[in-house]
């Protein structure tokens, strides 16, 4: 509720309570979890002191689910049940995925998102990602010794709506309360900017395992404003590995490989790539199940030659982002390098040549995103220390539109619009007596619907029959602070209202999520109940404290009658929150929230007026 936040700028409403908040970098190759401890963002290690969790999940025949290094170690032996780089499948159909032929999986084509058949049944990428997220949540809970209030989860800036929705669904499935989906380059900019007190215009060049992002940000007076973003959600370090893999097959003149041998050579390809970061040439040796022996040397010169088109592929989106921001390369104060793949010397050189300045590498490119996410999570959870305050203004990466006649796209929200954003457009009927209208929501930059990504189709029904062109159907797109879209449509002239919320066709339905959650709870159901009850009790306590502190400061904004109503709602909540009836607590919280909504609005207005009066917040 709004009462809490504006109570005392620079201080949380309940200063003694530190809420456990985490930042998660859910990467293609590796994932990390970080938190803010004594004012410092730190990555949380596993019990063996390792910070990275390989984004690998193995579904064993024996029913065991292994995540991380254990799964990674078994991948060549059990490639079909060991899922690597699952992020590449999030929100994607099989035709969207490159190099399918060299992947050892048993793909199942499903409505919307591709699925994988494993020893433990058919798994969606959302479920696989949820297993990774669950491992990170458990690591954090063990390490912090308590319940996690919420998490910020990072996504590539260039992720579309379907990919974002899939990520949020995975978090829900893993029992994580998502405070915000945060764009990876923006997270890196927070970590870098706060660390270096940077001001000016910066570029973040983020080449991860499977995705490439470029973001242009303006850093000024505690505001991180994204001016433009661009990228390629299917380009990353994996593609460099694949080029080396193809080179090995070509050089060693290998016949078609078994799944196990293919996975083995993919591992060798990655090792060779990493070795070349610090050496002039890399030996590649492997004994295959056929008895063949691979013994090759990969030099830097050959590696650069076979991968130079990939390096070049990152510069197109970079130029586009600069153009969208209305800037030239020399106006950039610095380029922050993010993602393990930026360690490759030819990437460093390409970036240096393009921007004409040496890239900034003083933060660990593997960790910077998780650290930024943790910092933001800490802020969102309300753990601000005095003076510790900043604002993120992010954008959507791709335009959102609707299909019109002839398969063309009418753009409703252009790319690089600052979020949250809403835009409405009016459409009309083209037939006499038409009572329904089909709407097709798409995302992308191209003019033809067939070249854009289809997000959702829905129908507005039950309109009163009118002559063609008389109906006025207002379609409103709303993108929230997570970059997620909802669409509503309404017929205006008749006063008749039809109202539809849209879920992307690639996302999971609420029923599917509920079913998966239920599956998960059969293993730990009483645990889940206690957890849920505890969560709602904490929420309730927080709400009561917020209202009390707001009343202390601003009760002059209320009439006696209004005050009495709020007091009554609060007493009711305090009475039920000690019990174990979750529904009663929910209902009482809802009543109190509603009862204080007007009060919150008045306080917000008062605070905004003060802001506009040009006074410093601290002086109020």
């Amino acid at each position, binding site marked *: *509720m*709004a009462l809490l*936040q504006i109570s005392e700028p620079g201080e949380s409403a309940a200063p003694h309570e530190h809420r456990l908040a985490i930042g998660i970098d859910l990467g293609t190759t590796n994932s990390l979890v970080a938190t803010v401890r004594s004012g410092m963002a730190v990555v949380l290690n596993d019990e063996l002191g390792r910070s990275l969790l390989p984004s690998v999940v193995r579904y064993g025949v024996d029913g065991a689910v292994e995540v991380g290094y254990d799964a990674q170690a078994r991948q060549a032996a059990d490639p079909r049940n060991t899922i690597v780089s699952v992020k590449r499948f999030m929100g994607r159909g099989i035709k969207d995925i490159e190099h399918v032929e060299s992947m050892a999986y048993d793909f199942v084509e499903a409505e919307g998102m591709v699925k994988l058949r494993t020893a433990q049944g058919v798994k969606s990428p959302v479920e696989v990602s949820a297993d990774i997220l669950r491992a990170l949540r458990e690591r954090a809970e063990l390490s912090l010794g308590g319940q996690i209030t*919420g998490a910020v989860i990072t996504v590539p800036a260039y992720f579309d709506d379907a990919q974002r929705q899939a990520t949020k669904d995975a978090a829900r499935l893993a029992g994580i309360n998502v405070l915000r989906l945060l764009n990876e380059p923006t997270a890196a900019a927070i970590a870098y900017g706060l660390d270096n007190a940077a001001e000016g215009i910066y570029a973040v060049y983020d080449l991860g395992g499977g995705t490439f992002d470029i973001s242009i940000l303006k850093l000024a007076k505690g505001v991180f404003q994204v001016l433009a973003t661009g990228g390629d959600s299917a380009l990353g370090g994996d593609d460099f590995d694949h080029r080396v893999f193809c080179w090995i097959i070509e050089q060693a003149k290998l016949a078609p490989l078994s799944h196990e041998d293919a996975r083995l050579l993919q591992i060798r390809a990655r090792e060779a790539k990493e070795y070349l970061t610090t050496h002039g040439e890399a030996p590649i040796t492997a004994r295959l199940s056929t008895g063949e022996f691979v013994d090759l040397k990969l030099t830097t010169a050959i590696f650069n030659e076979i991968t130079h088109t990939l390096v070049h592929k990152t510069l197109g989106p970079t130029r586009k982002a600069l153009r969208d921001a209305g800037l030239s390369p020399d106006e950039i104060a610095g380029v922050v390098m993010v993602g393990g793949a930026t360690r490759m010397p030819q990437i460093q050189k390409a970036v240096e040549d393009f921007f004409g300045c040496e890239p900034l590498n003083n933060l660990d490119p593997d960790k910077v995103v998780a650290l930024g996410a943790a910092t933001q999570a800490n802020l969102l959870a309300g753990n601000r220390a005095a003076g510790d305050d900043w604002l993120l203004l992010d954008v959507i990466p791709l335009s959102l539109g609707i299909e019109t006649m002839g398969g063309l796209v009418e753009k409703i929200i252009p790319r690089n*619009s600052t979020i949250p954003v809403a835009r409405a457009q009016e459409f009309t009927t083209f037939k006499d007596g038409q009572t329904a209208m089909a709407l097709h929501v798409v995302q992308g930059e191209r003019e033809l619907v067939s070249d854009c990504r289809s997000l959702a189709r829905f129908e507005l029904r039950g309109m009163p029959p009118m002559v063609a062109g008389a109906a006025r159907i207002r379609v409103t797109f*709303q993108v929230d*602070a997570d970059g997620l879209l909802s669409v509503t449509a309404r017929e205006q002239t008749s006063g008749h209202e039809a109202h539809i919320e849209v879920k992307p066709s690639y996302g999971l339905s609420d029923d599917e999520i509920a079913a998966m959650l239920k599956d998960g709870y059969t293993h730990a159901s009483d645990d889940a109940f206690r957890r849920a009850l505890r969560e709602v009790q904490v929420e309730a306590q927080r709400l009561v404290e917020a209202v009390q502190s707001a009343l202390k400061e601003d009760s002059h904004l209320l009439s006696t009658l209004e005050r009495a109503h709020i007091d009554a709602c609060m007493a009711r909540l305090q009475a039920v929150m000690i019990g174990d009836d979750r529904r009663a607590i929910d209902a009482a919280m809802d009543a109190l929230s509603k009862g204080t909504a007007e009060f919150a609005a008045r306080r*917000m*207005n008062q605070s905004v007026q003060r802001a506009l009066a040009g006074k410093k917040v601290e002086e109020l």
Partner: protein
Amino acid sequence: MNFDQDHFTLFALPRQQGLDAARLEELYRDLQARVHPDKHAHLSPAEQRQAMQRATRVNEAYLTLKDPLRRARYLLELAGHDAGLETNTAMPAEFLMAQMELREAVAEAKEAGDIDALDARHRTLKKAVRGEFEALQAALDAGEYERAGELVRQLMFQEKLLHEIDDALALLDA
């Protein structure tokens, strides 16, 4: 503060085409620092929705005021002047001739994949547009809404061409 007020009032700025851009930026940040959903992320869903709506409103107002063409259109709207932006396509013959020639040149450069030529066209067009914006401000200040409407229509035409050049450059880059 009433979020139903017009954009200028919301930002406490004078209702006119001339605008102190630095002041607008500053006010925008101050307002967002108060209403942005990130500031209300730990609150109830209802309050988060309210924050989203207010931040959306502030973003919309900011975008409208920041862009001189959208600002001018908005001023005409507030003045109750219908500039017939969707219906009125009448423009001076001289202007149309010049635009047609420019379009042809752009199409040719696009065909030939000539990035430098496209870049050069972009620059000259941008310069021409700047001059017209000055005229537009003068017209709005003087309350000459007919003239302002005509300039807005011309500028919309030109901005569209600028966008097309941008898109062509993006395609050549890919």
